[in-house]
């Protein structure tokens, strides 16, 4: 590093955008996704079929919707473990208004969404207002939200959702393109723009990289974190609508264990669990990969639990690979 290499007039960047794109995490994920797609096509004759592929999307769209918002939360260095419980509570309250007051579909949807939002706001308040660590807060609210669902519903279930309500979880917009898939794609675009092309997104990254310095730079850290928890709650509420519509019934145990799948998607998508780095494209690709893996193995009638070995190993390997690669490079240097 000599002085001559320092430019008087500072260039914007040295690497071309293309070069950095080629070397990115997303490229790695695209390659993995293509690999699994090909492997699936070879392994099962039933895979390459429009309806199969359409059915496959149901394996991930709901979780991926939450993963979009969760990615932002994790980028700021926080976490929300309560998403699955928010779904349970939102779904239960939808069932409650339906069965008690015979509420029509639009009201059901609003109840789902607002319950999610309220739960998210509660988490956000505990984290930013009371300055509590989010991992602990959301472990608590995880039991609390689902617990309320159990109190309301006990061993009962709610059913009898109207036909037009079911469309949210079972309907097709066009041919094999389901409403869930369309909603997910639209949400992905919105979140992509939000995170990568707005001031808000820029501040989210700044908080994740260094929350103190961000605050010292005039970023309203608490306000942004609060909004993000609300957003995660909102997406959980929307997911509650989809899932309830797809199942056509509500039990307090609905969506049990979703949270870990969602976080796996986010982390596999290249979002740093320590905060400050990640992309929506990565998360979308990770969701697709998980969908491909689980559906592909399902076609071979591999039990779900064995699939989790694949996803768990994939997670560790994909995270470890770049690290090992860097270590190897450093050793050679």
């Amino acid at each position, binding site marked *: 590093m000599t002085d001559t290499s320092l430019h008087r007039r500072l260039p914007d960047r040295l690497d071309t955008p293309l070069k950095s794109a080629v070397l990115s995490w997303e490229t790695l994920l695209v390659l993995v996704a293509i690999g699994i797609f090909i492997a699936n096509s070879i392994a099962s004759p039933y895979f390459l079929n429009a309806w199969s592929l359409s059915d496959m999307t149901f394996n991930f769209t709901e979780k991926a919707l939450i993963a979009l918002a969760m990615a932002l939360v994790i980028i700021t260095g926080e976490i929300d*473990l309560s998403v699955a419980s928010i779904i349970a509570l939102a779904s239960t309250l939808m069932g409650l208004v339906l069965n008690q007051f015979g509420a029509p579909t639009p009201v059901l949807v609003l109840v789902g969404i607002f319950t999610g939002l309220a739960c998210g706001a509660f988490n956000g308040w*505990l984290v930013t207002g*009371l*300055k*509590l*660590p989010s*991992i*602990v*807060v959301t*472990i*608590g*609210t*995880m*039991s*609390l*939200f*689902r*617990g*309320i669902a*159990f*109190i309301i*519903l*006990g*061993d009962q279930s709610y059913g009898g959702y109207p036909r037009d309500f079911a469309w949210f979880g079972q309907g097709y917009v066009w041919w094999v393109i389901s409403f869930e898939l369309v909603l997910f794609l639209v949400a992905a675009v919105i979140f992509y723009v939000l995170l990568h092309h707005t001031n808000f997104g820029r501040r989210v990254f700044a908080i994740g990289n260094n929350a103190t310095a961000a605050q010292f730079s005039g970023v309203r850290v608490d306000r942004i974190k609060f909004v993000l928890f609300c957003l995660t709650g909102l997406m959980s509420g929307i997911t509650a609508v989809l899932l309830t519509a797809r199942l056509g019934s509500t039990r*307090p145990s609905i969506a*049990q*264990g979703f949270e*870990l799948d969602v*976080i*796996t998607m986010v*982390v596999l998508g290249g979002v740093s*669990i*320590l905060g400050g780095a990640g992309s929506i494209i990565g998360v979308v690709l990770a969701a697709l990969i998980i969908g491909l893996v689980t559906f592909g193995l399902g076609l071979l009638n591999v*039990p779900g*639990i*064995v*699939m*989790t*070995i694949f*996803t*768990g*190993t994939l*997670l*560790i390997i994909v*995270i*470890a690979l770049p*690290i*090992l690669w860097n*270590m190897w490079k450093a050793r050679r240097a």
Partner: protein
Amino acid sequence: MNRLLKTREIWLALAILAVIVLVTFRFPRFSQPANLLTIFNDTSILMMLALGQMAVILTRSIDLSMASNLALTGMIVAMVNAAFPMIPIPLLILGCILVGAALGAFNGILVWKLDIPSIVVTLGTLTIFRGLVFVISGGAWVNAAQMSPAFIQLQRGSFLGLPILSYFAIAVAILVYILMTRTPQGRAFYAIGVNPTAAVYTGIDVGRTKFLAFVLSGAISGLAGYLWISRYVIASVEVASGYELTIIAACVIGGVSIAGGIGTVAGALLGALFLGVVNNALPVIGVSPFWQMAISGAAILIAVILNARGESRKGRVILRRAEGVA
């Protein structure tokens, strides 16, 4: 100052007492020694696991794989026992501890050598370990009929009126207490949690210390694997599924700080005991079991809010007036 440190545990102990007293009003039999011992015995496994988790959390890490480790070790030991009933139980227990420790070491190595955040590593092994349970068992359960009587009966024996299972918990608690307060290694767990940079300055290898914490939590999970299986006399894929969060909850209620460096053996034990007492009390006083989950969620939130209040009260004082006699 020591008083201040101790208050957290004392408050928790008082809370537990309060629950017991309240329940006793409605149901006198609840506070009979026999019932209290039963609760203690019922909570033994959770107490041990909470101690293992505490060691990991002290080092600013987290182990989400404990319950899966427990299930895997438990399945292995159950299958070994079913196939070779003549292997003496102490040997099996030793084997469990070693297998559990090895699984923990796998987590630890990834955290130490590759510097992958522990939450990612253990999120991965959480699913891998449980998947392996299915793979090795082919999905079949090992049930009471296949286990040897010694295997099942060991923890059910009692000594001085207390079941053997309780002694396991007491032994683990004593060992961890000695480790945490009497050995340089134990203090290293605290040191790297309080201030990792300063720990390096004092010659502590941060990575290696985290590794050892994972080995410890793994070994305890392994031991708990045997105890769990022989207690519930069924080994299946679903054993203790989702229990990892209960373990963390016990730690949090017990005042173990998720940011590392703060936590005591007594706190973790009381945290687990609190959950145990509440779970036992609810059905007895006729509260619907459906309230149980919401109540433990609320308990976690209240505990963490109280702990945070306690911590934020200390502020640095630079005014001579405020410092009093300086």
